[in-house]
């Protein structure tokens, strides 16, 4: 399964927020969150910190931010 790396969701510049815990991530990804994300979808939009609507199917997931659209894995 391809899970977008939380450090690259926003492009070359690290996104401001951790997509798992929603805390600031300007200084880099949170190691514990990055490890947990191997078996979890994102919950927060890494660009704006909004909680996303996440749906998980047996073979994939989608997460929608009202502002920044849909992410899939």
């Amino acid at each position, binding site marked *: 399964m391809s899970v977008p790396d939380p450090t690259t969701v926003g492009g070359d510049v690290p996104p401001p927020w951790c997509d*798992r815990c929603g805390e600031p991530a300007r200084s880099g990804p949170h190691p514990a969150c990055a490890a947990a994300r191997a*078996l*979890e979808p994102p919950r927060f939009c890494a660009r704006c910190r909004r909680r*996303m609507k996440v749906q998980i*199917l*047996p073979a994939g997931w989608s997460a929608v931010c009202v502002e920044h659209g849909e992410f899939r894995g």
Partner: protein
Amino acid sequence: MPEILDQARAQVLETGVGLDEAGVLAVLTLPDEHLPAALQLAHEVRMRWCGPEVEVEGIVSLKTGGCPEDCHFCSQSGLFTSPVRSVWLDIPSLVEAAKQTAATGATEFCIVAAVRGPDARLMKQMREGVAAIRAEVDIQVAASLGMLTQEQVDELVDMGVHRYNHNLETCRSYFPTVVTTHSWEERWETLRMVRESGMEVCCGGILGLGETVEQRAEFAAQLAELDPHEVPLNFLNPRPGTPLGDRPVVEGKDALRAIAAFRLAMPRTILRYAGGREITLGDLGTRDGLLGGINAVIVGNYLTTLGRPATEDLKLLDDLKMPVKALSATL
């Protein structure tokens, strides 16, 4: 060989009568050096009373989050500061989930909703969803929608739902520590109605909620008394924001002891790996459990967390020469 394993061999393996609470406790407290023998015996019991087939299932959340209940392990309770948002799955996505499940060779597809019990909207969504799945996908449909009324039980039977999941989660004595918004007895009442309706009863729980080893044994004995068709065994995956979010995960060896003990308590049940096995057991432990009493798996993703790819589990079953139960064998 510890006495309990000799007793279990004579009683469970030879006659098919499960261990009682004291026997389960003796297995749960076996020293590490006897764990391989306990797993080996549990495997023999499973092969003798269930056979080599493994039942494969996929699950999906029809309604996620926003639950009014307060099960302290659950990221879908609306009472905690969990990041899981409330969302409904539409019917095309539900059918797609069933297709993804069927594509793995699975025979079971369980539709789950995070509710205390179904309301009219959920029952309508179920009716439409189950009909759409049955029209397009060759798979048996199960459901897990919380506590039911007798009318809802009858409706689910009418829709063609063949199995109903409702977990007791933990033993009766520990339940009030984990859930305060409803009782263990209310859950038992739903299970009683499901049993009487002719639907298959699926009932298990989660280990690692802070229960003592004695309470783990109590739980196995209470499940054995219920005698469910299937027992899904979860290991706590501590969820951020929940009251149990900081609990440690169950030790791999304790998880394996529990697998063997639950199998020795319930020689004929479908004992299924459910959530948490990835973090508790890893790949090696997963294999040990399949050779220690487990005879069913959930493949693919879970409700709010992800599983390992179904292909990895199917390859493991193939390596272990355990055939996936076919749909023809379940009808």
